[in-house]
């Protein structure tokens, strides 16, 4: 009995802890700027000021579009490449295959500050300095390790007998991929796409350093600039934060299971 009480007590406290900020965001976003005082932070708004959202929407719309273009293209490209790479590493042998994989994995963990300066110069030199496509390239390349990892682990589960059977039927490298492996890949693609979508949508460091043209910046940069400005009227950043969070949040709520699988892919084996 005591156990049950403690249990629900813990859950209740935890829920408060996790949801209190959400309450505050919504309440603050709906207040008129003049009504936002520090003393009444927790009070409900007198009048629901939906204009915060319309203002944030107009300000953020082009940046949201940038984020969508960036995220969708980079996600699809890195997912495709990751699938092919994972297939190679899971099922085929070539000299050095064993060292290649850890070397690739290391790329997933590096702090990007260690490559930022040459990367910045490189993007500039190939002429993608102000453009969104430089950022797409960067995300595709640095997304290769994690997508490869997820697909490799996923394809490792495919029994070697199936591959053998395909070989006996006369299929070669590409045949086996298109006829056997790719049709089975849907869950892997879902995990990778959700993971990459979330990571790329939420990324900030590359976005703020590599995209010099404000018109091409994604939403994370826009939000940081909005909230970091002087004499901030907090309803706007709160509304902006909600808008910026909405896509990944929706993905998470509806496809949460796959999101978690992507999470767990990078750590525990089995």
């Amino acid at each position, binding site marked *: 009995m005591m156990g049950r009480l403690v249990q629900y007590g813990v859950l209740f406290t935890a829920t408060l802890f996790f949801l209190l900020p959400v309450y505050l965001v919504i309440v603050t976003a709906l207040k008129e700027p003049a009504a936002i005082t520090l003393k009444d932070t927790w009070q409900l708004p007198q009048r629901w000021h939906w204009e915060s959202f319309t203002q944030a929407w107009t300000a953020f719309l082009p940046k949201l579009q940038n984020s969508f273009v960036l995220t969708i293209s980079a996600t699809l490209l890195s997912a495709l490449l990751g699938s092919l*790479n994972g297939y190679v590493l899971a099922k085929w042998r070539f000299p050095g295959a064993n060292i290649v994989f*850890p070397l690739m994995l290391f790329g997933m*963990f590096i702090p990007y500050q*260690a490559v930022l300066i*040459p990367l910045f110069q490189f993007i500039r030199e190939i002429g993608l300095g102000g453009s969104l496509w430089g950022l797409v390239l960067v995300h595709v390349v640095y997304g290769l390790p994690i997508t490869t990892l997820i697909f490799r682990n996923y394809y490792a589960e495919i029994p070697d007998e199936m591959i053998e059977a395909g070989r006996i039927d006369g299929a070669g490298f590409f045949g086996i991929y298109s006829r056997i492996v790719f049709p089975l890949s849907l869950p892997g693609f879902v995990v990778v796409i959700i993971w990459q979508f979330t990571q790329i949508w939420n990324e900030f460091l590359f976005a703020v350093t590599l995209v010099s043209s404000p018109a091409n910046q994604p939403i994370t940069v826009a939000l940081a600039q909005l909230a970091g400005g002087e004499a901030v009227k907090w309803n706007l950043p709160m509304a902006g934060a909600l808008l910026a*969070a909405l896509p990944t*949040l929706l993905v998470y709520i509806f496809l949460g299971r796959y999101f978690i699988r992507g999470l767990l892919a990078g750590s*525990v084996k089995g």
Partner: protein
Amino acid sequence: MRTLAAPIREVKMRWFKNKDNLYGFLVILPSLVLLGVFVYGFIFQTFSISLTDWGKDPAQALSANPQIRFIGFENYRELFTGFIDARFRQDLFNTFFFTLFFILGCLGVGLGLAIVLDRSPRGEGFFRTIFLFPMSLSFIVTGTIWRWMLQPQGGVNQLPTLVGLPEGKFAWLTSREQIWQISWNDVPFITALVVGLVLVFIALGAFRGGERRRGYIAAGSAALLLLWAFTLGRTLQPLPFDEPHGFNLAFIGIILAAVWQMSGYTMALYLAGLRGIPEELREAARVDGASEWQLYRRIIFPLLAPITLSAMIILGHISLKIFDLIFAMAGADNAPTDVPALLMYLTTFRANQIAKGAAIGMILLLLVAAVIVPYLYRQLKSEVRR
């Protein structure tokens, strides 16, 4: 007639055993080249930039064709013992304490929630969704939200007033207080001491596990390190004066936000781990007369140890690199909450000290590598053994 192509083809076949392996290699080759350039090539380039003086002379820093000179490890020397880089040294402390409490917080909260959820209370799916949703947010969103929450005159400090208590007075992110101060000159000694003790621990574990060679190597290194610590380590003076460093209380707010965001991750890990423990094991223990607490302590926690280790590594490398969260929560100019990643950005892109920024980037890389490389090594050795 044997053409030249035939021996090459033979060699290739010997290497790749068959045509398909060759195709495999060719398919993965572009990714390898890209990563080779973008990861290893750029790391090398950053390292070479860090050995120059790019940025010290304002006339050269931003000019179209900067003339830069090689100065060896001077930038690194300045970062660790140079007078004006006190901020960097405090950042090292900041990152250490942040990592420590962040990991402890996430593990603690995650484990606690996982244990409760493992008992399948009502609405488990609902609770799980709530505890996990912050993971889908960007650090910028989290930082913005918590920045507003932790305003000293409002937000969290006003919460007690809702239940009739006086308002909180803690300055949160704007706090300038620092506790647990030690002098920078003591750091070599303390570091050597701690690492030496860890090596002793590893040696004991190795001997107990029967791995003699590893035990001897660890014990030997530990002895050397401890000897150095108590002799040279005590007299080494990186700085000509005492420079106090400690734990900045301003980080409490950041740790809070970071734990809020990431404890869902550890919860998911532990929940998967707990679910993986067969019910028979628990039943057997209960039949043997173990209390709930003993069940957890003797059986379940040890079984969760690999998960704890994995989580510590992953969380550790995230916290060492942390940039977005602090940028959004405290801004780039709030010195008490500075971290090396943020300092690198400021040094390179605002102060135009490009070579020094590169040096900070390299040090960050070393810190992360120290955590990740052993982990990767262990993971892959265990894989090969399988």
